[in-house]
């Protein structure tokens, strides 16, 4: 699968601090790429660099197989839609007039405005001033602006920020429909794992400006395999019993952690413990949530 966006050794320095450090992103074509990270991790800075709104300190950015530079930036961005931080609009103009400004800049026909208004379900509110829109409507207007011209790539920075649950669901459904309905590759950032979990197929996790994970979301899910925790009165003896059966276990918080086994096998080991006079006091199934993995990856677990 070809990559829509590739960054190589991308860095951004603010004074003495590194906002983004040696970032090697790879956003495949036709997917929703979730760009996940805590607040201040460098998500917006990275997206701004991709869009040419911030200048990288070092590193390269390739979009549509072309390395972005000052000269070709706008030509490349012609096929890109974006929504960075909060939606941009003129409060004194109507929704339609706002979109007219963007469509004029992008040299698009007027019927394109009606198409995107319909897509974000704002056609009934198009003649209302954007300043009178609710937050959800403003966000949808921003999304409509990004969708003008049916771009190949959409870069969305926290598009559901500040929305109520119904608004979040609406925007999420719209984003999820974009790759298969219009063939748009979406790069969407969020600090909320659950949100990315519901939208993205691929994921990049950034923390402290560094990419700590990048792969299919399913790979991250695989890391959340269940394990069995056993607490006995003699963990040392229990461990040797398990090891003698070829079961690798590790001790954590007074419990022995073993891979998930079938009930039949597990029952057999307990009988063995009883025979060896090892008292079993607790058995539980432990499963790492995606949140645990995210916190581990971003190093936030310690801070919390």
């Amino acid at each position, binding site marked *: 699968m070809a990559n829509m966006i590739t960054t190589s050794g991308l860095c951004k320095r603010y004074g003495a601090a590194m906002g983004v450090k040696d970032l090697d992103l790879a956003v495949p074509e036709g997917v929703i790429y979730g760009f996940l990270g805590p607040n201040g991790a460098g998500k917006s800075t990275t997206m701004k660099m991709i869009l040419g709104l911030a200048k990288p300190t070092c590193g390269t950015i390739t979009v549509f197989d072309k390395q972005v530079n000052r000269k070709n930036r706008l030509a490349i961005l012609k096929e890109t839609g974006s929504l960075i931080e909060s939606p*941009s609009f003129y409060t004194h103009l109507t929704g339609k007039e706002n979109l007219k400004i*963007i469509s004029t800049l992008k040299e698009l026909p007027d019927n394109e405005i009606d198409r995107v208004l319909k897509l974000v379900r704002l056609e009934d509110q198009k003649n209302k001033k954007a300043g009178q829109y609710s937050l959800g409507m403003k966000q949808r207007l921003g999304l409509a602006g990004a969708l003008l011209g049916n771009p190949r790539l959409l870069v969305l920075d926290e598009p559901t920020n500040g929305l109520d649950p119904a608004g979040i669901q609406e925007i999420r459904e719209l984003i999820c429909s974009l790759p298969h309905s219009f063939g748009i590759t979406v790069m969407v950032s969020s600090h909320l794992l659950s949100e990315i979990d519901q939208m993205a197929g691929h994921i990049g996790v950034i923390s402290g400006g560094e990419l700590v994970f990048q792969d299919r979301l399913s790979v991250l899910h695989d890391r959340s395999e269940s394990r069995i925790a056993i607490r006995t009165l003699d963990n040392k003896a229990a461990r040797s019993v398990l090891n003698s059966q070829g079961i690798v276990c590790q001790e954590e918080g007074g419990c022995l952690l073993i891979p998930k086994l079938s009930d039949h096998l597990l029952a057999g080991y307990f009988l063995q413990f009883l025979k060896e006079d090892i008292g079993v006091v607790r058995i539980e199934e432990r499963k790492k949530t995606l949140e645990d993995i995210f916190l581990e990856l971003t190093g936030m677990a310690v801070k919390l």
Partner: protein
Amino acid sequence: MRAILLEFRKIRGRKIWVTIAALFGVQCLWGMWAFRDMSAKELSQGYIQCLYRFSVFNTIMMPMIAAITASRICDLEHKGQTFKLLLTAMPAGVLYDAKFICASLHMAAVGAAQAIFIIVMGKAAGFTEPFPLDHLFYYLITTTFVTVTILALQQVFSLLFSNQMVPLVIGITGSFAGLFSLFLPPGIQKGVLWSYYGVLTQVKMNWDSETKIVDLQYIPVDWSGYLLLAGAFAAIYLTGRWCFTRKER
């Protein structure tokens, strides 16, 4: 051209012209008050008096008009956080130029309105001085050029600062600095941008301390002043444009 038309489309409904018209209206009212009940001698120097007094009055009014216009044209981008949207679709330099041209056209319109007002007032009051078409044209060019240079400075601050109090305070302070500098030697006047309405005026006031008579006369164009102003304009515009295009969003 498209970018300039877009600027006009953006300010639609912002009623920028209302503020400009109100300040111009004040200037007109002052003119009508100042040129009421004129004697025969005053009527024989009607146009020259108009050109002199309007130049002095412009030192206060035009910088304010320039500051307010630049502020209102740039503030809508700050309020709407639209730079990060626009600059993915157009070069920053083009946006900067379009804003400047849009605001400059407003300034040129004010200069033209002033010239028309002087003509109308001359006819209404019955000025007996021959109509000085060349001097009026020079007045229009000078007023517009000085205002546009001040506008260039105001636009830099209006674009770089999201808090529009900064450029407005600079505009008001500048207009008063320009007015006070008119009482200072010409060498110092030329160091104050806002004083160029007076520096470049083609009318000179003669004060005879013995007879206590004030007389006005036309003087040649101060080309060195024009050159200095042109240099200041180029420096301000290019520096401002460079800062704006390099600024990260």
